[in-house]
């Protein structure tokens, strides 16, 4: 039912336009002593998984705000938890953030209360997935690309320069076909990867955003994915299963997150990653504050902490992501280094198209294919239709 309501409010807000900004916090009081955050697994670490990855303890010591984390595995779970209430902050991805704004579950952020706002990456300061009508409904938290991972034993000295290797049948540098040796993400959002490939290779289709496809563009993307089905033995869903497939199934190439690349390289598996000439899709997460947040002072202090402490640097190492504060790559506040940021795709921002939920009323054209059809059609494509 929550889902129904959510869909209802989202659509309603889309129709009548977003409502005017609600009141924001004017000044900070005394810290409330606690803070409740909804986050992706691994996003808020207090040194319990690995001792050196800890960006909570120092915050608790300096502010007295005890942090409670509720992990959510999907954007839907996040939205559902925020609808239930009882939380102060959420680390929302691009598909959840606008839904939360439209559903009036989050409040505008008073940027003047966040001293480190100026250090935030200029490329993210006005990003459309959390800034609506000029109002900031959050502060960027972390971002990353979906890279092309390949087996260095197979590709040798000639790393792939195009997503071709996962979209078209070909012989790889080791002389064998790529059939049965490539993988693709099993989430319907992978249709956007196909659309981005077409954007580059079939300009006559006129795709301007891989998330805004009309019927003809959408059909072309599905046709491309049908070819991919014949090459793909198994689609990946779980990061650890994909890593196992690169170890034991002789996989040669696949779209993936830097997270898997880093872990596999750490284990000595011969893999590397590139962002090919067509560019890549990616994710960008935002810290957003619940409209009825009880611990507003602690929440503001946390947002400041998320930008100014070791969090940005260490989280980007931990997750294979990129800091939203460029200085975190170089100033030694954490474990991240300039090389590490480059490896995680920091310099490729402009070539990354960040994930947003496809909706039927899109900006670039009259009407786009909405996400629920992406889901059912992608199920069909994987099923061989």
């Amino acid at each position, binding site marked *: 039912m929550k*889902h*129904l309501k*959510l*869909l*209802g409010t989202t*659509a309603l807000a889309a129709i009548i336009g977003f409502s005017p900004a609600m009141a924001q916090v004017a000044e900070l009081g005394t810290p409330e002593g606690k803070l409740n955050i909804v986050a992706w697994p691994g996003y808020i670490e207090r040194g319990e998984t690995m001792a050196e990855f800890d960006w909570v303890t120092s915050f608790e010591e300096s502010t007295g705000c005890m942090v409670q984390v509720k992990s959510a595995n*999907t*954007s*839907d779970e996040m939205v559902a938890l925020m609808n239930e209430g009882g939380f102060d902050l959420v680390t929302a991805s691009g*598909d959840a953030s606008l839904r939360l704004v439209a559903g009036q579950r989050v409040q505008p952020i008073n940027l003047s209360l966040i001293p480190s706002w100026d250090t935030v990456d200029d490329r993210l300061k006005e990003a459309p997935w959390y800034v609506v009508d000029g109002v900031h409904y959050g502060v960027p938290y972390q971002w990353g690309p979906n890279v092309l991972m390949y087996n260095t034993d197979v590709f040798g000295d000639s790393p792939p320069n195009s997503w071709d290797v996962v979209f078209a049948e070909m012989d790889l540098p080791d002389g064998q076909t790529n*059939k*049965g*040796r490539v993988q693709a993400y*099993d989430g*319907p959002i992978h249709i956007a990867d196909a659309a981005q490939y077409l954007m580059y290779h079939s300009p006559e289709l006129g795709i301007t955003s891989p998330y805004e496809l009309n019927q003809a563009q959408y059909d072309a993307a599905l046709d491309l994915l049908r070819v991919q089905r014949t090459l*793909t*033995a*198994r*689609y990946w*869903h*779980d990061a650890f*299963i994909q890593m*196992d*497939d690169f*170890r*034991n*199934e*002789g996989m040669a190439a696949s779209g993936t997150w830097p997270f898997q690349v880093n872990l596999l390289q750490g284990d000595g598996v011969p893999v590397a990653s590139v962002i090919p000439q067509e560019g890549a899709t990616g994710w960008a997460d935002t810290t957003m504050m619940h409209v009825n947040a009880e611990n507003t002072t602690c929440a503001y202090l946390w947002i400041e902490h998320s930008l100014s402490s070791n969090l940005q640097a260490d989280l980007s190492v931990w997750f294979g992501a990129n800091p939203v504060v460029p200085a975190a790559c170089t100033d030694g506040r954490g474990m991240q280094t300039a090389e590490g940021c480059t490896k995680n795709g920091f310099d490729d921002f402009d070539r990354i198209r960040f994930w947003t*939920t496809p*909706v*039927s009323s899109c900006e670039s054209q009259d*009407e786009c294919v*909405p*996400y*629920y059809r*992406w*889901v*059912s*059609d992608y*199920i*069909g494509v*994987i*099923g*061989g*239709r």
Partner: protein
Amino acid sequence: MTLAADLTPREAKPNGAVLPSRGLGDRVSAVFWRHPNVLLVTLLALPLLWLVVVYLGSLAALLLQSFYSIDEFSGMIRREFTLSTYAELLRPANMDIIIRTVSMSAAVTLGAVIIAFPIAYFAARYARGHWKALFYLGVMLPLWSSYLVKVYAWKLILAREGIITWVTDGIGASAVLNGILALPVIGGSSLSTSYIGTWLVFLYVWLPYMILPMQASLERVPQSMLEASADLGASRWQTLRTVIFPLALPGIIAGSIFTFSLTMGDYIIPQIVGSSRRFIGQAVYQLQGTAGNIPLAAAFAVVPIVIMLIYLTIARRKGAFDAL
């Protein structure tokens, strides 16, 4: 009631026996004693509430959702009665999912019957004492370890660089394995990405649910009937076919209900081992998620219920529930 009537005049007598004053517990139990139905309702209220509200209520909510539809343009749910969502199930891609799931359930059930029968027969007819205990332990042991651990372990066993490939290479039988993997539809690039692999893992995970009821029904086949069969000149094969099998059939059907329905509802095994082609459980999981297409997810969820109802009706006619 007569006893109660007896008591009243005696209590009324001033010089009668001195009875202890009746406490709350006495009075409550007296009410229960006089009105047995009150006791019945009190005891049954909670479990009934659970059954009706939690079980049937959620099922009804599910059923209701499946009669709604999703608006083609806005993606919003139209809360009006319609059968269009069920019509959507008939689309080729969705029919594929249903046929795929039912075929896999049937194949797993058939495989389980064939493998479980000799095991159950041995356990029921020949195993004694320690051997019997060992048998139960052997069958139950896999059930005690985590389902996910078993499935991941199987993924490793079946992998292209796993132990099966290693063994077949070692004994020079890789041509056989490649021949099997080259089969259309059920083959694939390795065992762990083919239907054969999915089938093997399903078979392993659900096998105990087939063996146990089968063994229970085989144990109930009277020895005297087997002797009579032998006296009348039946060969061992004839006895098996015409005496043991029909008498064990209820147990086999009971086991098949487990393997069939468990396979039909599972969404984890086909995600870890297989070619990523969706099964009903996976489709439901995905459609109710970000897609927000709850009507279609609900309609999909109704499919196994309908199939199982048909299956159970047939099973009941065959007397399967006598063996449970």
